[in-house]
């Protein structure tokens, strides 16, 4: 039960993008086409789940026994960067189309604050191993959800008559705000 709650909380009620406002850069940058948004979401989910898993292991079997918890930021960033490299190679090999569509945003997953935030949340909330993995996966799903919803809206928006000063990023940020408001409605789903 607890695991399900963690998953739903990470994916919907405490959505990383729309409630914590983490990872806004790819959220704005890659959300103009549904296909690449989904690809980006998948890549980030993969990295998030792996990052949560690996950093949990590093934290519990290396940093805590050796009493060097202060290294948590540095090691986590190192881990995330390496994982992103791995994902990049993997995507380049398996799907050159997706690789080109994601472009610069793929290496930018490295500096996606949602992922570093995730690994730090895991430490902060004292999650057990399985909880951490589910939390990472849930956060990734939430990120994908936000990205895909946004991309869907933006694709429709292509045909809308947007006032000139709001074209592009302006209207995107306004939609992001409205989406965040809508996601606040999920707040009552879990009371904690």
């Amino acid at each position: 039960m607890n695991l399900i709650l963690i998953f739903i909380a990470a994916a919907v009620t405490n959505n990383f993008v729309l409630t914590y406002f983490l990872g806004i850069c790819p959220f704005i940058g890659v959300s103009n086409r549904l296909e690449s948004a989904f690809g980006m979401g998948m890549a980030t989910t993969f990295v998030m789940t792996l990052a949560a898993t690996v950093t949990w292991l590093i934290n519990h079997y290396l940093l805590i026994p050796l009493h060097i918890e202060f290294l948590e930021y540095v090691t986590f960033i190192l881990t995330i960067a390496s994982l992103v490299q791995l994902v990049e190679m993997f995507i380049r090999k398996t799907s050159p189309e997706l690789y080109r569509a994601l472009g610069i945003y793929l290496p930018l997953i490295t500096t996606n604050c949602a992922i570093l935030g995730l690994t730090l949340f895991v430490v902060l909330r004292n999650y057990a191993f399985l909880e951490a993995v589910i939390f990472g996966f849930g956060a990734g799903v939430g990120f994908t959800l936000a990205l895909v919803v946004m991309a869907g809206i933006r694709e429709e928006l292509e045909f809308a008559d947007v006032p000139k000063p709001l074209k592009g990023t302006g209207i995107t940020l306004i939609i992001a705000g409205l989406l965040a408001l809508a996601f606040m409605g999920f707040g009552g789903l879990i009371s904690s």
Partner: protein
Amino acid sequence: MILTATLTMVGLGAFFAIVLAIASQKLKVTEDPKIEELSEALPRLNCGACGFPSCHEFAKAVVEGKDIDTTCRVGGESAAEAISKITGVRKTAAKKIAVVFCGAREGDKTKKAVYKGVATCRSSNIISTGAMNCAYGCLGFGDCMRACPFGAIVMEDGLPKIDPEKCVACGKCVSACPRGIIELLPFDTDNLVVAACRSRDPGSVVRKNCRVGCIACKICERLSGGVFYVEDNHSKLKTERMEEKVDWDQIIKKCPTKTIVKIK
């Protein structure tokens, strides 16, 4: 403590390095060596004149035999040679040049305000279409000069001067100009004479705004037999009729506002 911390970091770093090294071997992407070879021969400036975001992308499209214009305007002989090796067809691009459709230097144009904002054309243009009275002419802050990857543009008396030797018609300046007064014109004709003004204001207004603005008097239209024609209150050049025998010098001399200039 320091030792543990250092050793941990070194250990972790080494571990990830090894994992990545193995992965890069396992997941190596094999690319046609021709692409790399051709890519080497291209100028590698990623100027985008061919319509591809980078020289590498262009090389890839050429090698894959896609139906595209396989000319590199920038690369010159060496690039043409390398491309012809792959396509089997020797093509050289028609020489084009960027032309600025405004001839007003500092002092030629009257101003309505003093602009002290960010010194770029783009920002100046946003504030009620710039500090000068003419809403169509060159703003003179040199956005085109900064956009040019080849250093072909220098600013002289508040007007860009384009070096035909260096200009490869990549079109960077065309999109950099907020006024949209830079255009790519064919340069392999004998003469290139243009009416350097894009003002849509009626002649009476142009007279007040600018010393060299086109007042749409139609003298050039008459003298050139229609190679120049007046539309939207300014004279335009029919580029497809540029090769015709026209007394260009006469037109330049007769233009009352000296709007018509000789590029070549």
